[in-house]
Structure formats: C-alpha cells, structure tokens
C-alpha cells in the first residue's frame, strides 16, 4: 500500500474531530511505515490492542511497521505531542539519501532552481554505468548546438574519471587550471581571497562557419596534486558556500552561455548527486539497452521523476550505443517502454483526453557506430545526425525558454485581444476569401486539367475552391504557378451566380422523363449559362440558327441577372428537343475549336449540387448521373478545351452508381486536410494579428507559410498554443491534438472549425483576465483549458451541422446524449433502433458520414464514435466500454 493510500485509510477511520484528532505517516527507505495517530478510537485500548487494531485495519504485519505512536487526544495533550513536520532535509533534495526520502514521501516543497527558465540552462548528462557513450554524446550535442548558433559550455563534473580536457588537446588556449582547482579554492580559501578567475579555467573549441561558440571547463590535468585535491574536496563544503551558484554566476558574467552541459559522475556517487540535484535544470539519463543498466536506472530515475516539474524541469532517457540493427532497436524500444511505464503514474496513463498512442512515443536512440567508437578525437565531423535528436530535445526546451521570456515581457492580454480568427465559410459572401484561403496539398491535383470530380465531406473546402477560381481568379492563377494561364473560369452551377434550385430541378425531373434526358438538360443548361455570361462566340449562319433563335428570348446583357422561369423552360426545351440537343452538341464542338484556335480553354465549375438537388429524392441520383454522362459525352466528343470541375459531397459521390463511373477514376480528388495544411491555416489565422506576426518574425521566422516545413510551423504556432499539451516530452503535441480532435471517423478534417475553436478559446482565455489568482501559462497564449473549451464549442457547431445535413438521422442523433463513445455491436443496434429501416444500413450510413468508426471486427467493443462529435452530441466520454 502506498503511503498516500494508507494516509487516506487512516483519516477515514480515525478522524472524526479534525481539530484534535490527526494522523501522520512517514515511509522510511527500508520500507517501514512510521505513524503517529491521535484519535478517540484508542480510548479504553491498551498499547498492544491499539497495534492489533491498526494491523487489522491496514492488513499489515507487525514487522512492516517502524515507529508507531498511537494516542488518545488526552494522552497527546499530556505529552505535548503535535504533528511534526519533516525537517531533516532541505526543501529540495541535495544528496541521494535526501532524494530517497523525498521520493518515498513525495514531499518536494521547493521551487525550481531556475524558476524563470532563464539562460543559461544546465543540462546534466548522467548514466548509471560507465561506457555507455555519455561523454561522447555530450561533446557532440554541445558541438551541434554551437553549430546552430548557441553559446555552449561543457563542464566536466566527472571529477574521479575526467575526460573533457582531451577535447582541448589540439587547441591553442588550453587553460592552465581546471574545475577542481577552482572549486577547491572556493571551498577552502579565505572568503574573497581567491586567486583563480573563471577565465583561468576554460578553453574554447573552434567552430568554423557558425556564430555559435563551444567552451570547455575541464576537471584539470591529472597529476598528484589533482588526486589529492579531489580526495579532499567535499560536496558538503561546496554546499555550505553555495559554490555551484557562485560558479554559475561567474560563468554567466564572463561568457553568457545559452547552455551549460554537465558531464556527471556515474552511479550513486556524491558528485553524481551534485550534478543531478544541485546543478541540473534538465536531466538526460543515458542507458545502454541491457538489464544491468535498466535495473540501476529504474530506481534512480523513479526517484528523480518525483522532482520533475518541481525541482527540475525535465527528465529524459536516451538509449545509447544501441546496436545498429533491428534487434538492437527492438531491445532499446522494449526497455525504454518498460522504463517509461514504470516511471509513469497510473493516473497519468489514464488521462483520457491526452492519451498518447504508442506510436506517438519514441525513444531517443543513439546507434553504435564503429567510426565513433574508434575515433581518436572528438567531435567527429559528419556524425551530426547521430546526435541531433539530443540537440533537438535541448533546442526545443530552449525555444520554450525564449518564449517564456517573450510572453512574460509583454501584456499577454493585449496580444490575445489582437488575435483575429476568421471562420472560413466560403459560401458567406461577407468573408474575404482571398485573405483566408489556404492553399492545401490538394490544390495542385485540383487544378490538374484532367480532374473532374472534387469530392469531400461538407466543410472540407470545396466551396472555397469554387469561389477562389471564380471570384479570385488572379490570386488562384498566381498560386497555380502558370497552370491557369489562358484559362477562363465560368460558374456552370453554384452560388457565384443566381441559379436554379430545388423547385427547378424537381420541375425538370417531372417533365423530362419521357422525351428527354438529364444529360441533355445539363448540356442545355450550360449553353444558357454561357450565353448569360456573354461567352458565346458568334453563331455561324444557318448551322446554329435554331439555337440562336431560342436564346434571343432571354437577355444576355447581365451575367448577374436572376435565374427566371424563362431560363428554366428553355433548359427543359433544350433537354427534351432531340434536334436542338444535337445542334447544341455541335455548337460545343465549335466552341471548343474556337478556344483552341486562340490557345485558350474554358473551365466550368459546378457547386452546391447537394443543396440544389433534393437529398433523398427519387431523381437525385439520376440528375447527378446525368451530369457525369454529359461530361463523359463531351470527352467522347473530344473537347479538350472545355473542362469540367464538379464539387460533390463525399457520401453522394459514393452513392452514385452510373454506367462507366470508372471513366472518372484517377480524375477525382478527395479533398483532405493533411496536418501540415491545417497547421498552415492555423498560422495564417494567427498571423492576421500584427502583434503575433511581429513576435513570429522575431523569434520563429517563417518565410513562406505555404511551403514551410511542419517543424517550422510547430515552432511559430507555439506562441499561440504551446508545443505540447503538458510540460513533458512525452505529452501530445498541441497541433496534433487540435488536428485529430477536428477530424472525423473517416479521416476528414474540417478547416472551418479551426476558426471556431480558436475564437471560442480566445474568448475563454480572456475570461482569465478577471481572475488574477489563476496563474497564466508563460509558454503560450491559449492554455489547454481554453483549447478544450474551444473544442467543445467547435464540436457542438459541427454536431449541429450534421443534424442539418442528415435530418433523416435525427432520431439517432438525439439518442447519442450520454451514449458511450466506445460500444459493442449490441449496444449500437439498440441506439439505431428499428424505425429507420435496416440496422446495418443505418450503421453503414453513420460510418460513411464520419460519425462512427469500426475499429476491429474481432473486438468485443468494435465501434467508436469520432472525438469530433463526442462533445457536440454530449456523449459519455469514457474509456469504459459498453
């Protein structure tokens, strides 16, 4: 039983009058439990009975107890027994012994050494066993960081087996003295009568072609004097004079390094404790993947872990000298996972919202290479990639540090207020689409001239593309890098122009059945649209006279003119009169040739097909199939200068089943927002704020948002929402969290929701302004709670959209309230009910609309509802299955 659990049991059993009854529990390193209990329950009981009572209550044996003090309140008063605070140790541990006591009783009281995360940051490289490549990694990491422009200082605190002095062997300015001489003088000389200055003990490794610098403080040359002084140097003496802080202060004054990388003594040694507990802001523990290393590190890291986020910032494990083959990597992963699991509190593992999937967690692995093992001097140029993961880890922490300085130096509320997130709704003409449009990875596929079908869920940006190519053609042309030159875009159907709607399509459906076809209707409709757009070349005599005569009846002067019944009737006529249909076909050939002659092409765009052709009507699929027959017929006619782009909702496209649908295979694009597209949109949104923009250009400059790498995007977005959900290196990346939470069960992500999420998160964040007692995070503008709030808001919005898109499923949606998000088939069938027809069909429908996912058929609980909707439909969010 853990001491916290014991305490809980004792409190519930013995405390009725908290003002005079109390319990105190303390665990000693030999695993004995010491307890003081003052309670009325002991009245009338002799000492032995009191012990029996306790043994029975806790199901423990006598030998498991250390010291027991069991008194009634009256006895305690008589003997002046009061709760006694743990006072033997410092507020934070400084020795291994103190560390064990802290770890056992979880009693770290102190603040971080480097509370404000200022530079320099001290990173201690520790290993339980020697020979695991710790010093090699330290040297190369320092060198890589210096190559990246940082000022780095390497300090050899492995005083009993030093090696960093070898780094300076080929350097001109090798210092005359080392750290041991310096510390010895600071420990034992008269106060302020010091002969050695910090500048006497460091040397520099020359780094070419970099603004960064690499300094080294060696332990010293190993001679008899060195050995004698190391032997007489006591950590306790260093502690008494607070010598590490003095040393750090002098180093900072002289060199202002960004990082101090400390090479620590191995094992359980007082210098190891000094490096880890007094010097370190961050700890990197090196481990060779074998049991010997594992067993030693497990206990030590377990104890150090209790200090993470309190006394130290971070504790990370590096699997080192891993054989460069699959077995080596597997073994490293296996031990790393075992170690990580052992170090992770069960309640951390169960944190449902931030649950990391296994694939998110990867150890840092440094492979063994012969070149490094046999090298005569370090660093070895050309091996940056081997050690870069360690440098990246430190770098990432450093960026967070920089950011804290930025955000604490300015009025965070002012920056937050300046953020303006646009909810990108392309169908709303009030939106300035040209400003918010995000070019995604699919854009190039979309503008490929052979692409005809652009399908995707509602909200994936189909309408945005439609509008961009019509209203903001010039901007689109620039984005297309020349591929839209000599193209003219025309809205063949959609919200860009007044258009026929449900009534008109119903009318056509009811009247064409005998004499006409949908293919002919679409052909006629296109002709009228072209006429209205003033885009028809002159009619040659006679050949197209009949068409010209029909068209005369409608005004062609204004493309913006409203769609009227006369247009509807004319479409019908074109669609049902076989002779006219043939003429129109000929006319399209003529039009194509005309374009070809001028080296141009016409592109026709069809949008809002799901909205204007009644969902679920008998003719819906016929009408749409007719459009594709028409397009296919144009292809058959060989009209390469007339191109069609149809935007169609994913589930409708999947339901369409017309002859030769395969004609469009490879000519369709499934619109999907990849994570990088999403990050680009997020950054673009944040950059609307000039204040945010100036912060980004100062600290994490991005030259071209549309071509920036994911790494750069993550960096520049960290001001907005941080890097990770929690402040540890295994927590989920915020960007991934947002992306995944706005993605449905089919993998479709909804960019429009991002603006909604961010706006709601911003509003929520600003509420904290009135609550100064709630500390604001210094590493991000929008804290996790605000993003959670934003997610709930976006999820509700999306759930509402789903209700509107699929009204036939409303009874199911209503029953989702408090329904578990992971469930069995039986439970799901109960939800679906009988009123909507075949249960299997409804379940398939729920899957196709992205609400539900079937994870694993063999599983007892194979169904899972998308995270995106769980909040919106107020489902039961639990890992428990039903």
């Amino acid at each position, binding site marked *: 039983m853990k001491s916290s659990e014991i305490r809980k049991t004792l409190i519930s059993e013995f405390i009725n009058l908290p003002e005079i009854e109390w319990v105190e529990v303390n665990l000693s*390193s030999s695993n004995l439990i*010491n307890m003081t209990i003052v309670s009325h329950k002991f009245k009338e009981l002799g000492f032995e009975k009191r012990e029996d009572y306790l043994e029975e209550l806790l199901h423990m044996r006598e030998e498991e107890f250390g010291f027991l003090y069991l008194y009634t309140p009256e006895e305690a008063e008589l*003997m002046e027994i009061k709760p006694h*605070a743990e*006072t*033997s*140790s*410092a507020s934070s541990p400084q020795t291994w012994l103190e560390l064990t006591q802290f770890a056992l009783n979880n009693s770290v009281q102190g603040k971080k050494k480097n509370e404000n995360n200022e530079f320099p940051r001290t990173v201690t490289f520790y290993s339980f066993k020697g020979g695991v490549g710790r010093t090699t990694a330290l040297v190369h990491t320092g060198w890589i960081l210096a190559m990246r422009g940082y000022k780095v200082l390497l300090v050899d605190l492995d005083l009993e087996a030093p090696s960093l002095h070898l780094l300076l062997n080929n350097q001109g300015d090798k210092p005359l003295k080392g750290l041991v001489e310096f510390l010895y003088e600071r420990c034992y000389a008269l106060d302020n009568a010091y002969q050695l200055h910090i500048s006497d003990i460091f040397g520099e490794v020359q780094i070419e072609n970099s603004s960064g610098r690499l300094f080294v403080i060696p332990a010293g040359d190993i001679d008899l004097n060195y050995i004698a002084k190391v032997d007489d140097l006591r950590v306790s003496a260093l502690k008494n004079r607070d010598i590490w802080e003095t040393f750090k202060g002098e180093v900072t004054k002289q060199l202002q390094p960004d990082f101090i990388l400390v090479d620590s003594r191995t094992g359980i040694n007082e210098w190891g404790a000094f490096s880890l507990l007094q010097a370190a802001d961050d700890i990197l523990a090196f481990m060779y993947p074998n049991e010997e290393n594992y067993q030693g590190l497990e206990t030590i890291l377990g104890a150090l872990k209790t200090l993470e986020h309190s006394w130290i910032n971070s504790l990370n494990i590096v699997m080192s000298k891993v054989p460069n083959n699959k077995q080596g990597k597997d073994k490293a992963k296996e031990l790393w996972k075992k170690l990580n699991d052992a170090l992770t509190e069960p309640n951390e593992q169960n944190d449902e919202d931030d649950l990391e999937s296994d694939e998110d967690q990867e150890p840092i692995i440094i492979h063994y290479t012969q070149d490094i093992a046999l090298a005569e001097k370090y660093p070895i140029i050309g091996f940056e990639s081997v050690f870069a993961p360690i440098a990246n880890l430190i770098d990432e922490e450093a960026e967070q540090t920089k950011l804290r300085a930025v955000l604490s130096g300015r009025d965070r509320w002012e920056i937050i207020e300046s953020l303006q997130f646009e909810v990108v709704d392309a169908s709303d003409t009030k939106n300035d689409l040209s400003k918010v449009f995000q070019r995604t990875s699919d854009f190039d596929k979309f503008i490929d001239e052979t692409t005809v079908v652009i399908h995707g869920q509602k909200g994936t940006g189909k309408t945005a593309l439609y509008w961009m190519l019509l209203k903001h053609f010039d901007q689109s042309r620039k984005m297309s890098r020349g591929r839209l030159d000599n193209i003219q875009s025309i809205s063949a159907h959609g919200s860009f122009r007044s258009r026929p709607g449900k009534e008109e399509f119903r009318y056509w459906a009811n009247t064409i059945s005998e004499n006409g076809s949908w293919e002919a209707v679409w052909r006629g409709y296109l002709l009228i649209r072209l006429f209205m757009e003033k885009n028809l070349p002159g009619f040659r005599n006679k050949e197209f006279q009949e068409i010209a005569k029909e068209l005369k009846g409608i005004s062609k002067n204004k493309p913006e003119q409203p769609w009227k019944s006369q247009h509807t009737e004319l479409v019908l006529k074109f669609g049902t009169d076989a002779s006219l249909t043939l003429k129109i076909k000929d006319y399209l050939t003529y039009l194509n040739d005309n374009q070809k002659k001028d080296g141009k092409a016409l592109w026709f765009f069809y949008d809002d097909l799901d909205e204007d052709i009644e969902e679920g009507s008998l003719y819906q699929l016929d009408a749409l199939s007719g459009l594709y027959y028409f397009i296919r017929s144009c292809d058959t006619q060989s009209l390469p200068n007339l191109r069609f782009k149809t935007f169609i909702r994913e589930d409708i496209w999947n339901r369409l089943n017309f002859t030769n649908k395969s004609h469009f295979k490879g000519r369709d694009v499934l619109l999907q927002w990849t994570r990088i597209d999403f990050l680009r949109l997020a950054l673009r949104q944040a950059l609307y704020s000039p204040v945010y923009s100036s912060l980004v250009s100062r600290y994490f400059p991005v030259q071209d948002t549309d071509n920036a790498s994911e790494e750069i995007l993550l960096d520049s977005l960290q001001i907005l929402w941080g890097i990770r959900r929690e402040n540890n290196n295994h927590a989920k990346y915020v960007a991934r969290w947002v992306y995944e939470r706005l993605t449905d069960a089919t993998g479709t992500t909804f960019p429009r929701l991002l603006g909604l999420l961010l706006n709601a998160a911003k509003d929520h964040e600003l509420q904290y302004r009135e609550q100064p007692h709630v500390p604001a995070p210094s590493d991000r503008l929008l804290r996790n709670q605000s993003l959670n709030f934003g997610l709930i808001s976006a999820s509700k919005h999306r759930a509402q959209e789903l209700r509107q898109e699929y009204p036939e499923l409303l009874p199911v949606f209503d029953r989702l309230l408090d329904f578990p998000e992971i469930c069995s088939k039986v439970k799901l069938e109960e939800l679906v009910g009988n009123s909507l027809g075949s249960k299997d069909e409804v379940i398939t429908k729920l899957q196709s609309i992205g609400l539900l996912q079937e994870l694993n058929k063999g599983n007892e609980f194979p169904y899972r509802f998308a995270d995106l909707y769980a909040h919106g439909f107020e489902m039961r969010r639990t890992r428990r299955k039903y």
Partner: protein
Amino acid sequence: MAVLHNQGRKIGAIHFGGIAIECLLKNMIVQYHALSSWDSHSKQTGQPITNPKHILFYAVRSISTLQLRVTSNPEVRQLIKDVQQPFGDHYIEWRYVGTEPNTEKYDEWYQSYNKLRKWLIEQSKNL
C-alpha cells in the same frame, strides 16, 4: 538517572532515562543543525527545525542520516521502542505509575537504555 538507578528507584529511573535519551538526541540535533533555538533555520538544510518534544522518533527524524541508520537497524529500533514506551507506557507517563516493575523487566529496560545511549553517542561523532 544513574543516581536513581543506584538507589533502586526504578520508576524514577525509567522516567528520567527516557528524558535523558530525549536530551541526548536534542543535543545532537542542536549540534548537527547548529541551532540557536527551536524553529530557527538549520545551517545544514536551511529548513526550520521544530522541537520533537517527547517523541524519540521525531528527534531521530530530524537528522536524515540518523533516521536512515535507525530505520535500517532493527535492533536499534527496538531499543528506541523499549525506552520510548517501557512496558506499554510512554516514559513521561511513568511518573504517574505507582507500581514498581519487577527486577527482571527493569534489568531488561536498563540494558536497552545503556545500549541505546552508547550507540547514540557513537553516532553523534559521525553524522
């Protein structure tokens, strides 16, 4: 305590024996932490050190190395228990006890007391 023992005043010896160990421990604490008074800050740890009163384990716990040595050593643990609570009653309560313990029991206690005293003095040289 020695006077009481020599005079055969067992109850007094048990009561003051506990107090003698308490004082010895408190002296070790004051020395180790270089205290000027209770609740002043330790020169070793920087933490305030509170008076352990009559709880010997609290006194032991005030010096981390001593705590480790005591809790790792079952025999010493038993000695402390013997002196802390001779035959079930706290040494402070022994002043209200009217019946002398029998000689055999008393001798056991006296042995424990002496062993503990000697052990603590030895430790005090090496903390």
